[in-house]
């Protein structure tokens, strides 16, 4: 079982080394864990830090946004024949101890497994009231569109099998892609599961959504639209063959 950790990094010079160190310690009973950092045109020294610490990284000459960076990782996984790809944030929010749990769920036959903050109250993850309301709204919207509850649709800690790697390598939304892709995947008829994980407060850097008041509002409108459009435009895979 070959597992690839995809770590998108934009201006993460301070945290990327620790993230990679944590991943190098992680291991599986029946497989290997590799990682690749996707440096999304960072303006700080992320690239230099990667070279100095001999980190396996892909250097994007332009800033593509989180979706474009993550998709690069999926392409890398596809080209290098990985069985499972796991998205993992470069800012120290995610906990490498949960990797085996995610892999196990994939082995049970799920196509995509989401590490969720809200399935059980495992984590002491504190988020603002507004943020919780926003996430609840997205959950509800996904429920309406797909008839399935996803409790943490914005989680960036996700594992996928070969089928999904191929899907994502071919087609992936450019910015704020998480909730949108979940809808597409469920609509296509793939199996999605959520398992509880603990997430830490980000150690360094600022969330892309905390820079000003308008960003979260714009985010919610955009993501809501994206979900609805995905729900309306996606057809079940193999529906033509039946």
């Amino acid at each position: 079982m070959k597992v690839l950790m995809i770590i998108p990094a934009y201006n993460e010079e301070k945290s990327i080394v620790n993230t990679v160190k944590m991943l190098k310690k992680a291991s599986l009973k029946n497989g290997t864990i590799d990682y690749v950092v996707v440096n999304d045109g960072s303006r700080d020294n992320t690239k230099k830090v990667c070279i100095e610490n001999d980190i396996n990284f892909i250097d994007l000459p332009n800033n593509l946004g989180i979706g474009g960076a993550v998709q690069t990782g999926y392409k890398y996984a596809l080209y290098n024949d990985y069985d499972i790809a796991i998205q993992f944030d470069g800012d120290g929010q995610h906990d490498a101890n949960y990797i085996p749990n995610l892999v196990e769920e994939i082995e049970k036959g799920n196509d995509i497994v989401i590490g969720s903050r809200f399935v059980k109250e495992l984590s002491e993850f504190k988020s603002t009231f507004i943020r919780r309301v926003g996430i609840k709204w997205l959950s509800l919207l996904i429920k309406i569109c797909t008839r399935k509850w996803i409790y943490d649709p914005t989680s960036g800690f996700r594992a996928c099998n070969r089928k999904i790697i191929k899907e994502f390598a071919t087609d992936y939304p450019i910015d704020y892609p998480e909730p949108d892709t979940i809808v597409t995947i469920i609509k296509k008829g793939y199996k999605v599961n959520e398992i509880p994980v603990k997430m830490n407060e980000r150690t360094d850097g600022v969330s892309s959504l905390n820079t000003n008041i308008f960003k979260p509002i714009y985010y919610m409108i955009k993501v809501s639209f994206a979900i609805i459009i995905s729900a309306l435009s996606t057809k079940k895979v193999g529906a033509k063959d039946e």
Partner: protein
Amino acid sequence: MNKNLTIFLVCLCLLTIIVIFSMVKKKKILFKHALLWSLLDIVLLIAVFTTDILLDFANLVGIEVLSNMVFLFGFIIVLAILIGVTTIVAEQKNKINVLTQELGILNNRVRELENEQNNGNNKK
């Protein structure tokens, strides 16, 4: 229509066509886009000489003043071209994305091969 106005409008149309074609020559715009613009220009040129027919048409759709109809259609055409341009932007953004991603992955592979080669040389 007033003779002077007709001459003025015809000159304007001809001038636009000349400008468009000189831009194509200098490769500032693509030939297929130039065709679109010159087509529009030719339509306007025809419109200058067929005001009677246009007036009948305006009456038919219920527009009282001819100039209003001309502006309305002009606006619609410009909007249509704008939408066309945004699709071109989207298409190009997608292409740039793919190029950026593939370039990044290729770079990674080159570094990997270089490392392997260096290690091999060191062993020798």
